């Protein structure tokens, strides 16, 4: 019911206020009736029951992904350090 899907605008029919969007390789039409901000080809929008609901903030999405990348790197670094420490403490080493 409530799952909106990120899609990329590939063309805009200004007369009918309809965008053609790419949703992971599937081409669909979506009404722009609920959008009062400027949208252009290449913008990312959320599509729900045939309507674009809003524009996705690209910078924000990238910033979030960057945060996750840093968290993952930090965790992997911690894991590596832990592995080295455990290795140092290995009782079976000659």
């Amino acid at each position, binding site marked *: *019911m*409530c*799952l*909106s899907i*990120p*899609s*990329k605008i590939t063309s805009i029919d200004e007369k009918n206020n309809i965008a053609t969007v*790419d949703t*992971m390789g599937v081409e669909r039409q979506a*009404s722009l*009736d*609920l*959008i*009062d901000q400027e949208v252009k080809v290449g913008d*990312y929008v*959320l599509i*729900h*029951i*045939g*309507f674009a*609901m*809003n524009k*996705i*903030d*690209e*910078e*924000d*999405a*990238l*910033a*979030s*992904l*960057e945060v*996750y990348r840093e*968290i*993952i790197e*930090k*965790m992997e670094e911690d894991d590596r350090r832990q592995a080295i420490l455990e290795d140092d403490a290995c009782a079976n080493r000659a």
Partner: protein
Amino acid sequence: MSELKLKDLYDGFRDPKAIKALKKLIDEESLKLPRKINVMEVCGGHTHTIMKYGLNQLMPKNIEFIHGPGCPVCVMPKERIDHAYILSLQDDVILVTLGDMIKVPGSNGSLQDARSKGADVRFVYSPLDTIKIALENPTKKIIFFAIGFETTTPMTAALLEHVTKNKIENILFHINHITVPEPMRVLLESDDCKIDAFIGPSHVSVITGSKIYEEFVKNYNKPVVVAGFEPVDVMQSILALTKQFNEQRCELEIEYSRAVSYDGNLAAQRLNDKYFTRATHFRWRGLGDIPDSALRLKDEYSYLDAEIIYKDILPNKKIDDHKLCICGDIMRGVAKPNDCKVFGTACKPSSPLGSCMVSSEGACSAYYKYGNLL
């Protein structure tokens, strides 16, 4: 900064490594919690994500999810479904609604059953598809049975805008749009309330903005984090809530800031205000009557209101849920689906007795489907 790809918006927020890393951070943060916290995810979309990705099983012992009432199909009372059923069986009517309504049982059966009796019921992907049906069937009355929370209300308003502007004379509306804050308030004010914090709905908030949750932070002292629908969004939001408890803060945060603002989609809100006003009450399946928790068409559009036009054939008698069903308790967070005597036996997605088994966003249906009942 690199360029965003569409794939990033999918894969980036479902990355197993990020889920694992966030789990580790949540585990560390949970060690400092003074007591167990119960987090209600209000929206059925989040319930679905939590069960699908097994996020409930990634939580430490002192953080628990309570599954909320945010599944519009689940909370639709039988008497409203009966309205759709009765309208669809009128000779000159084509009933149009969204696909989620196909199997929802009323007291006479579902819309699928009405179809097998000869009713003309059409399930559409978009409300705007109703216009094409109306133009192709000029001798029929096309009734759009409108469902959903704040997420779908502006789409119905957009259809109303097309109908009134283009003077399409054979489309009517049966409005069942409901709103999120009122049931949240009811849950918080119930005697056995266990809710400590909320994960705010994703796409309701895209439309309304996060401002509608201010009251829960200020008046009820419950932190709210508005989360996206992906598993990484939910994990990040749980981490944010846990930090709030440990730092003794109670705030409204937006984790889903790539799509949600404080004020929301103002164009959509204006369109809603043009056509809708508050209905005095709506009887939620599983929760009962909640005043001012639904919308109706404004009086000046009563000529489009199927409920008024067909009032002589539409009964308004309350129809209660099955006696054995404990959906009300599940939605209040005092029971889990597997506590129910009929869960998975007499009540299944293919033959639901109660509201939470009706749609894939209902807690019982998600438990049944994904079965991770640890």
